[in-house]
Structures are given as structure tokens and as C-alpha cells.
């Protein structure tokens, strides 16, 4: 009996770490690696995501070349842009310094002959790290007060691979808001998985992607 008990304890001692390991990665073979999933200086325009956002409307437009930005553009490689107090620079998207963050700022301006309205924009980059099944990923965004078009609807979305993890819509006009989500990955996504950030139907406003992080495991 004693021998059986010992055997049983030894078996348990052997198995418990395996069980814990299995729990911590929820079926994945590699431990989770919390940290940033995106680098906001690395976004580039993309035509992907139609299955999530639908096709761009016929009147969609976005001037992707920065205008009157000689002082700032090209953006410094891998760094955020710190605009002065009265910048003339107009850019549909820019990695902007905000406090200690580098945010992806999406600016829009109303239509004129030099500054076309940007009302449909999808940006892409490969993920910085792998996501394991069961990992929690937090997406944090913001929009400023939205004033136009009225009536209208603004849409912010974030896609990881084949999953739209943030799908935020709001009727215009509206006050500022911080759309965010914590998404639990149902499966593994390798590093380099395409990520999409999408904004549409916006007026003369400001949207931003603040950060996207794989969160550390929640402690009991």
C-alpha cells in the first residue's frame, strides 16, 4: 500500500508539471510571450479585409501621400513624429508621439482640391510575436469627438489573421471614446500573422490605435 502510495505520488509529481504546462499554454507547445503585437511605426496601406469590412464604397477616397509635410516626412524610421504647435502637415496616418506612447494616428480632413477626404483606410503589418491558443490580446484605440458626416456611422476594426477582434461602430455625431477589447485567442497564430487596422466613414476627426498587447497570463 505504501509502495503503491509512493508510486502514485511519484506519478503525480511527474505529471503535475506537464498538466500545469499544458494549462498555461492551453494546448500550445511553446510558452506564451506577452508583449507588444504591433509596432505603430510599421503600418502600411492594404487592400485586404474585404471579408470583414465589406468592399470600399464607390466614393471612398484617401490621400496616402502626406501634404505640406516637408518638415516631417519621410517619418523618421522606427520613431514617432512630434508635431509642432501649428503644423501644416496633413497625413492620413502617422506614427505620432503622444506622452510616452507611439500611437498610430489617423487624421482626416474635409475634401478640398489639395486635401481629399480620407473616408476609408485599412493598414497592415505582420504581428511582432506569436499568439498561443488561450492568450489574451488587448487592443486599445481612441477616437476624438466625431462631428461629420451627419447622419453617419464611424467604424474602427482590428483583425488578427482570420479573426476580427475589434469591431466598433458608433453613430455620428458622438463624443470621444476609447474602444478597447480583450480577446482570447482560440488557436495559435504564428509571429508574422497579418494584422489589419481599419477606419471608415470618418469626418474631420482623429482616430488612433494606442497599442495592441499580448497580455501576461492572469494570476489566480
Amino acid at each position: 500500500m505504501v509502495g503503491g502510495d509512493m508510486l502514485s505520488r511519484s506519478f503525480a509529481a511527474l505529471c503535475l508539471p506537464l498538466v500545469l504546462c499544458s494549462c498555461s499554454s492551453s494546448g500550445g507547445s511553446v510558452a506564451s510571450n506577452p508583449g507588444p503585437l504591433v509596432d505603430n511605426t510599421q503600418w502600411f496601406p492594404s487592400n485586404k479585409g474585404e471579408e470583414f469590412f465589406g468592399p470600399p464604397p464607390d466614393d471612398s477616397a484617401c490621400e496616402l501621400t502626406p501634404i505640406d509635410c516637408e518638415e516631417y516626412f519621410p517619418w523618421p524610421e522606427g520613431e514617432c513624429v512630434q508635431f509642432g504647435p501649428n503644423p501644416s502637415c496633413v497625413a492620413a496616418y502617422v506614427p505620432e508621439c503622444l506622452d510616452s506612447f507611439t500611437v498610430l494616428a489617423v487624421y482626416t480632413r474635409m475634401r478640398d482640391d489639395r486635401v481629399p477626404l480620407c473616408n476609408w483606410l485599412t493598414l497592415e503589418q505582420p504581428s511582432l510575436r506569436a499568439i498561443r491558443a488561450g492568450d489574451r490580446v488587448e487592443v486599445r484605440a481612441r477616437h476624438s469627438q466625431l462631428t461629420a458626416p451627419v447622419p453617419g456611422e464611424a467604424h474602427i476594426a482590428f483583425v488578427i489573421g482570420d479573426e476580427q477582434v475589434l469591431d466598433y461602430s458608433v453613430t455620428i455625431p458622438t463624443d470621444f471614446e476609447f474602444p478597447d477589447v480583450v480577446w482570447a485567442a482560440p488557436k495559435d497564430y504564428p509571429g508574422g500573422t497579418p494584422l489589419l487596422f481599419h477606419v471608415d466613414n470618418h469626418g474631420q476627426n482623429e482616430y488612433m490605435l494606442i497599442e495592441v498587447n499580448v497580455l501576461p497570463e492572469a494570476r489566480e
Partner: protein
Amino acid sequence: MPMRLIALSTILGLLLIACGESSTPGFSETAGAGGNAGGGGSGEFTTTLSHTYEPQMLERAEETSDVCQSWVLGNEEPLYVRKVRQTNEGGWHHSNWFFVPEATYRPNEQLEGPDAQLEGTWRCSDRGFSEYIAAAAGGVFFAQSTQALDELQAFPDGAALEIPPRSVIVGSTHLLNITAGPLETAMTMEVEAVPAEEVQIRLTPFSFFIDDLAIPPAVDGVPTRSRTSMMCDLTESFQELLGKDEVDYNIYYVLGHYHQWGSAFNLSFVQEDGSVQTVFDIKNKIGEPIGSIIDPPMNNRGAPRLRSECGFINNTDETLRRGFQYGEMCDFLAYTDSNLKIGASGVNNQAMGVDEDGIAVFETDCGPVIGFPAYPDER
């Protein structure tokens, strides 16, 4: 003269009417067409006065407005301010600071309780704070650029802003917490003041506001671009108030002001022959233009007229008039060495057609130019 004082006070006040969180009067380092960033004077900073405002607490994803903070200077004599520097611990989206007499924003015991102090943190609405009243009662002191963690405002050597005795610095603050957790953050403000005998130039304000705005609406959903201007001849003011036949002054600081449909601002000297010299120019800037020091200061080179103009992009179905939250403005404040305080309004709006870029052009007449000598001993 009393009528003039009242009228000017009103005009100065109207110029800077608060517009909720959207107006940003004050100073900053970047100049417009007139010059370089305002690091005027030597590069050193000698702290004469310093104050750290109470920390503000923000929850995650919280954005605050209607929070005012005050600093009682307790000065028995005028202060001559050459430089102001702010540093903060993050989350300060922007803030606008004014100097006002101590009596302007006393605690409201009914709303704030018996322990409220003149100095501290309070809800702006509890004390009836508006930038309109603050600018009229004292003047603009400092404007923090959007989300700037540290910032210096400096006038050129010899020039200073005079802060009257027993003044209070009051700021309306707009904070925005983009961190993933709560945020506790404070601003520290340092002031470099100089003795009166070191001040050669006491700066005085000019302000124009276009009262008769009529910004055309969008057509079939397409936003309409327009611009509206006013221009005033200052010859009479210099003759009558200073006894000078020539209009001669320098501009040290300019703040243009419009709201969310504004996209551009221009301030220019206009000569007798119609030639134009730009003092300050903002373009492609939707909402919240920020003031700038003009360094080196810009001389009018004898130009008798001063012209201000705003560009607008109206995406609404309505003609926009002068107004606060749902209206527009086209105002400016400039600090000069003219020894004159001047205020004027644009009236009698006239459509002038469309320019070569397809922009609808409107001009207003200069209403009565109201002014008085700022320092009679300096004529």
C-alpha cells in the same frame, strides 16, 4: 474713455471666448511666417517663481475637461515675465493659462464647500470660469501645446508681459489618459521674471474679431470651402491716441482662433499700395490653432492696415454664424510694442465671389477701432 475701456474689454473678451475646450490662447515656441521658434533671449532659464499644481487623477480611458487649477502669485508689485516653462507627468492634452486679479475667481462656497481655497483645483463651472472673462480681466499667460510634456515660452530680450499686482494664474485643463491604467499627473510651471528696469518693452494687445460671419453650407453633401477677412486702418488710432503720424509697431506674439470648421488663419500687414506682408500663417489646421511668439518681432514697415483672415470648410447643411459650441469664430490676439490697446470687429459681411481655387471669398468692413494708450507715461 470709460466707454472705450468697457468696449475694449468686451472686445478682448469676446475675442477669446472659451468655446468649451476648444480654444487655445497663449504662447508657444513656434513662430509663423514671421520668424523662428520663440526661444527669445538667451538660452538660459532663471527660475524666479515655480509652482507645482495639485496632481490630477484619471482613471483608465478617462478624459477630463471643466477642471481648472489656480496659482496665487501673491505679488505686491508687477511682475515682468520673460519666460514660462511647463513640465508635466503625462496626460496633459492641452491647457490654457491666464493671469487674472485675485477677485476674479474666488471660491464658490455653495458649490465647493467651506474649505475651498483661491489656490487649488476646482471645477471651472463652479466659479463661472470662462476664457472670455479671464482674458478680459487679465490676459493670456501660457498655452500648452497638445500633449507636450515640456515646453518653453520666451519673449525676445527686453520684452516682457506685465502681470499686475495680486494676480492669480488660472488654467483650464484638458487631460487625456491613454495609458492602460490609472494616471496621477501634475504640471509644474516655472517663471522667469526680470526687474522692471530691465524691461524695455511692455507688450500690449491688439485684437480683432469678425462679428458678422456667414460661412456657406455644404452643397449636396460636398463641404464648401470659404474664407472671410477683415482689415482695419490704424492710422487714426496712432494719431489720436499717441500723437504719431506714422503707424509703427512690432508684433511679438499672435494667437489666431477659430473652431472645428476653421482650417486656416492669416494675419498680414497691408501697405497703402495694397502689398501684403504676412505676419503669421496657419494652414491645414483644423480646430484649436495655438498662439506663437514671433521671434524676431515683425515690424509693420509703415503699413497702416492690419488684415486677418480665416479659412473654413463647412460640412454642415447650415450657414455657420459667430457662436460658441455650434458656431464659428475668426479672432486673433497679438501682443505688440505699440503702447496701444486696440480692439476692432468685422461687420457688414459681403460675398466677393469665388477665387481661382474655387474658394468662396467674404470680406467684412472694419467696425469702429477702439483703443487707448496702455502706458500713458511711455508716449
